[in-house]
């Protein structure tokens, strides 16, 4: 009897794990299937085209791929310093106590705020600020664009890398650190030479998680990027991302080729996210 329960439990676990895999496969294959019409009719032009014109049925994904990559990596770049600082502070310097638990709950809170609220905040607060900066820099003061979207994304993805970094730093064996102290290392030296090298792949995995979140973020980006379907000319230029163009245009698209093209945009986003994740995992496995 006990054995059967055991077997049944194991079977359930396997089935559940398998169903996730199947679901992923189903998403991929339906994206592939529904984008066939646009693949057939647009061919490679879809990947190299800079024009997105539903009126003439010309669809090129390049501006959106560029917009997605630009905002995501810019956001990652902006988030790395603060995320690293937070991880080190909470994983090494003040692990417990009032300040730590206060900061920890703040980070959790940051992760729990819906993205539309980030978008609103960005519209009301960031846009006027960015406009002032742009005026000072003598670029067209739109207030919206790649830069503004990246800034909000940076804040949104911060909790993911910060909390993972914190946890892996806490896992650094106390013996190793004590050994370093015994050799006369300062606290900074212990961090530099013991803790960070030990936790390196975990910290990197946190950034990867953040990046993945940035690649797919839709609502906040839509509200702040300016939704111009062009290749952006600079970081203050308006642009658009893949997730954002799908959210904007899918519900009103009726022409079959138009719908198929939007689904193909989703396919490209899916593949790009997978690719970046695989590359990142490889880097982690190699120990960087």
């Amino acid at each position, binding site marked *: 009897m006990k054995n059967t329960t055991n077997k049944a439990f194991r079977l359930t676990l396997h089935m559940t794990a398998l169903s996730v895999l199947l679901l992923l496969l189903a998403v991929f294959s339906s994206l592939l299937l529904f984008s066939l019409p646009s693949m057939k009719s647009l061919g490679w032009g879809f990947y190299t085209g800079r*024009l*997105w*014109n*539903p*009126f*003439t049925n010309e669809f090129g994904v390049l501006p959106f791929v560029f917009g997605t990559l630009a905002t995501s990596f810019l956001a990652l770049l902006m988030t790395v310093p603060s995320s690293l600082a937070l991880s080190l502070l909470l994983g090494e310097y003040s692990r417990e106590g009032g300040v730590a638990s206060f900061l920890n709950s703040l980070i959790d809170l940051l992760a729990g705020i819906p993205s539309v609220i980030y978008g609103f905040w960005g*519209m009301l607060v960031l*846009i*006027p600020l960015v*406009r002032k900066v742009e005026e000072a820099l003598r670029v*067209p*003061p*739109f*207030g*919206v664009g790649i830069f503004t979207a990246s800034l909000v994304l940076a804040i949104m993805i911060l909790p993911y890398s910060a909390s993972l970094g914190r946890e892996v730093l806490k896992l650094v064996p106390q013996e190793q650190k004590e050994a370093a102290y015994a050799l006369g290392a300062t606290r900074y030296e212990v961090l530099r030479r013991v803790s960070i090298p030990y936790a390196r792949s975990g910290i990197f995995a946190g950034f990867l998680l953040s990046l993945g979140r940035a690649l797919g973020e839709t609502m906040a980006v*839509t*509200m702040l990027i*300016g*939704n*111009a*379907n062009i290749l952006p000319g600079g970081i203050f230029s*308006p642009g*658009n991302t893949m997730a*954002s163009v799908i*959210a*904007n*245009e*899918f*519900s*009103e*698209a*009726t*022409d079959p080729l138009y719908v198929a093209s939007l689904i193909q945009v989703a396919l490209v986003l899916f593949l790009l996210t997978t690719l970046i994740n695989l590359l990142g995992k490889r880097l982690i496995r190699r120990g960087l």
Partner: protein
Amino acid sequence: MKMRTLFTILSLLLLVGSGLNAQNKELLGAGATFPYPLYSKMFDVYNAKTGVKVNYQAIGSGGGIKQLIGKTVAFGGTDAPMTESEMKEASGEVVHIPMALGAVVITYNLPGNPELKMTPDVLADIFLGVITKWSDPRLKRLNPQVSLPDLPITVVHRSDGSGTTFVFSEYLGKVSSFWYNKVGVGKSLNWPVGLGGKGNPGVAGYVKQMPGAVGYVELTYALQNGMPVAVVKNKSGNFIKPTAESASQAANIAIPQNTRVSLTDTVAPKGYPIASFTWIILYREMKEGKMTKNQAAELVKLLGWMVKEGQQYAQPLHYSPLPKKAVQAAENVIKSLTFEGKKI
């Protein structure tokens, strides 16, 4: 045990029975978001009066058309008439019944927000990016009483696919062949200049925040929010201020039997030139729409009520009611509806 099974079966039967009963008094529709506040008011009043419940999902015009073609709803709602290719996709003949009018207004952010006059060619050139400054001589000549600042013009358009964009671009395509060839007509466009805001609030938000911005929003939205709007010259040469009344006037023309008529650049002398009907669409042969005979009869009654008595609810909500000729045309379409080939 047996008693319980019996009980279950009985209660299941009861549930199915009551469901069927309710179905006759319940109608399902989906589509345009623009008329949604008006429709929900109408359906509310109608429900209180007759007990007929209408469930309308505001998922957008494109969605309404898709659902009608997919036969998941009894009727759809759309701001842009169905295209020929969409009509072909449907398994039966689809009819359009106008329910109210909407208008697209030009709004802007200028010091003091004066009332500006616009002509079709100036409007097209602003949105094409040909006129780039508010101090442009053509704008100055049109508005001698306003001191226009030397500000760059920032164009704001809709980023989401929208019937509003369709109506606006259709107007510009009619008044400017250059616009038609370069940009075209549609719910989403390849805009030559400017930024995209999501929905009316998105466009309005950008315009309010950016000195020198110009955008287009629905008349109802502009009126509710007290936004500055431009007066536009119509085909007869009159400068018309956009109001619920002047948008209604745009439909004061000979309306074809199928009511699938574009009202932009209207020939009506008092009509605001960027106006459009919003339609309810359904299969002429109502059985195609997966309705029972009772449901079809209820829907016909409802539609007849909406284009007549229902019109009184338009103006308080800033919608433009159908003028008499349009009501007549709508009633003729409703009369032509059939169930299994017979008139209802």
